[in-house]
């Protein structure tokens, strides 16, 4: 029997009060973004905002609870943007969105600094079970950054993977780790690199005993890249059924997938709130198309959720949780 696990890829919108309070505390300019050594008032505001979004997930009834990544001003580039060996430069476009982040330029060795682990420690105080960690996958993080230290793409990718693995080793106990890899869709790795990407993901996944999901979005990955990704020792691969359900199903039909699967069945970039029944239908459709009974289906938003206003964001968390409950009632 398939277990439906309601979760999200994290990177939540700040509660509205925190938008105001933190913009007053930090300012609006490039130099005002989070640095990794914020003062007490800023730390306190983020602590309270974290409590808000953890409660929101618990009240909604999600099966996995994320920290929320509210400090991640630079979205998936955050772990590098706050690193001591990294200089942040101009504001650059975040994929094809109308969002921007600081370009992180790596200038020295990427040693693990525990920034993300510290956030998770704080979240672990609030969550008894079902804590989920979120990180950029090694390929996406290297794709969002510029290297001025390691010298070639392969060495840089390996270094980023090693850095992320070092971060993961410092994590408190978590149930699940989501590695977000939108760059696998947006910027297909060239021949040869696709295999290395799979090994890099392996290196990060092997640093934890938690279940690891490599989640992709904004479409489907190229089939050759997908075939290599299947070699990575992860527990599930995530597919964006909102952006491109047909190509994702094709990949699974052609190359199979893991025993577990993550399905992006809620649109993280549109205010239209899906009903629990619609979410269930999308999961059922995928299972039928791939003719497989999965051990676990992670029902998730396809993308990060900071694109949404907070009211619709909260509605979507509830819809995901209710969709999983719907399954339990029927089972």
């Amino acid at each position, binding site marked *: 029997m398939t277990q439906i696990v309601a979760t999200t890829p994290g990177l939540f919108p700040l509660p509205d009060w925190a938008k105001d309070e933190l913009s007053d505390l930090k300012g609006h300019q490039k130099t005002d973004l989070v640095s990794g050594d914020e003062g007490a008032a800023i730390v306190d505001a983020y602590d309270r905002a974290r409590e808000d979004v953890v409660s929101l997930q618990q009240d909604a009834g999600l099966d996995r609870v994320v920290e929320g990544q509210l400090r991640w001003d630079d979205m998936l580039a955050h772990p590098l943007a706050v690193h001591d060996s990294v200089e942040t430069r101009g504001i650059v476009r975040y994929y094809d969105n109308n969002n921007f982040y600081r370009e992180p330029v790596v200038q020295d060795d990427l040693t693990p600094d525990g920034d993300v682990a510290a956030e998770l420690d704080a979240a672990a105080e609030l969550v008894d079970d079902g804590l989920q960690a979120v990180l950029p996958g090694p390929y996406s993080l290297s794709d969002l950054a510029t290297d001025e230290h390691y010298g070639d793409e392969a060495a840089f990718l390996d270094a980023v993977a090693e850095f992320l693995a070092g971060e993961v080793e410092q994590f408190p106990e978590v149930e699940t780790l989501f590695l977000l890899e939108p760059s696998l869709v947006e910027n297909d790795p060239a021949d040869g690199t696709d295999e290395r990407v799979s090994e890099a993901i392996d290196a990060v996944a092997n640093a934890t005993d938690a279940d690891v999901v490599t989640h992709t979005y904004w479409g489907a990955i190229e089939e050759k890249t997908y075939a290599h990704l299947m070699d990575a020792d992860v527990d599930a691969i995530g597919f964006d059924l909102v952006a491109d359900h047909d190509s994702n199903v094709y990949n699974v039909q052609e190359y199979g997938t893991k025993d577990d699967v993550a399905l992006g069945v809620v649109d993280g970039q549109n205010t239209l709130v899906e009903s629990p029944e619609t979410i269930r239908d999308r999961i059922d459709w995928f299972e039928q198309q791939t003719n497989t009974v999965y051990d676990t289906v992670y029902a998730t938003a396809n993308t990060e959720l*900071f694109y949404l206003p907070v009211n619709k964001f909260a509605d979507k968390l509830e819809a995901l949780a209710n969709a999983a409950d719907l399954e339990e009632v029927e089972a």
Partner: protein
Amino acid sequence: MTGPREQFRPENHPNDHFLLTTVVGSYPKPKWHDRAREMFEDEDADFGAEEWEESKDDASRLVTHEHERCGLDVVCDGEMRRNEMVEYFAHRIDGYEFNGRVKVWGHNYFDKPSVADEVEYGEQWLVEEFEFTDEVADRPVKVPITGPYTLANWSFNEVYDSEEQLAYELADLVNEEIEALVDAGARYIQIDEPALATTPDDHAIVGECLERIVDEIPDDVRLGLHVCYGDYSRIYPEILDYPVHEYDLELANGDFDQLDVFKEHEFTKDFAMGVLDAHTAEVESVEEIKDNIKKGLEVVPPERLTVSPDCGVKLLPREIARGKMENMVQAAREIEQELDAGEIDVVATGAEASADD
């Protein structure tokens, strides 16, 4: 020369050559006008709709006259009545709703609206703004209007099957508004499509939107398209097929790196070139601006060159914005004199612009 451009040459224009000087649209709001908005939005303040209307009228009159004193040939009211380029229109179109702020970057947010029902023409958008500005202005008035593609691209679409379909529906509404503006006497309309620069693969959708927009608009109405902040090589020369007379493009900010893009293929329409950087709070010298204008003459002949800033200047301190406008007009007039005297070699030649091309 006749046609949709020559009508904007002032009667007492001092030179034979005429480089049309204008602005893109927005201008810094006077502090008292910002304060008035805050008071209007504060329920506890004794400041009602009538007072707020008066503030908008005063600010509009002030900036229109400031543009005239700078010597601009075609003026705007600096968009004193508008808050933001999508929100303003979304508030007036039936079918839109607002749910709250979303992040753009850092702690900069945008009240991104949702299309929650079929879009329909609601209250007027810009006719009252135009009528007021035209009344107080001695010079011709340009009306900037956010284009349907940008209105669609910068909204959540809950209703239509695709963003493309939403853009076409909105294009029909923009057409309706422009017809009303033309009836009110407007002769110079600029359609702002900044979203095109970020999603250049959609240039054909913007083209179809423009076809809908110009439907039954008289030939003597000058139509411009403003696109800023992007890689123009990905949309040029394709955009030359659009049914507009003029393209207003941002070039000073990139130090004219992209100028060559427009030389590789003959620029067959009017070229409104950004000669001022809207993002630096320093007034460019007349000499520097003259050099920039000359770069424009490498692309089109003088009768097809419009001189304007890169983009709206609302984020600049007001005295800086005014200084930039004054120097820009002076630079244009000096270039005209030098052209009259035959002191400048015009490199570019080309066909006359026509909306029917």
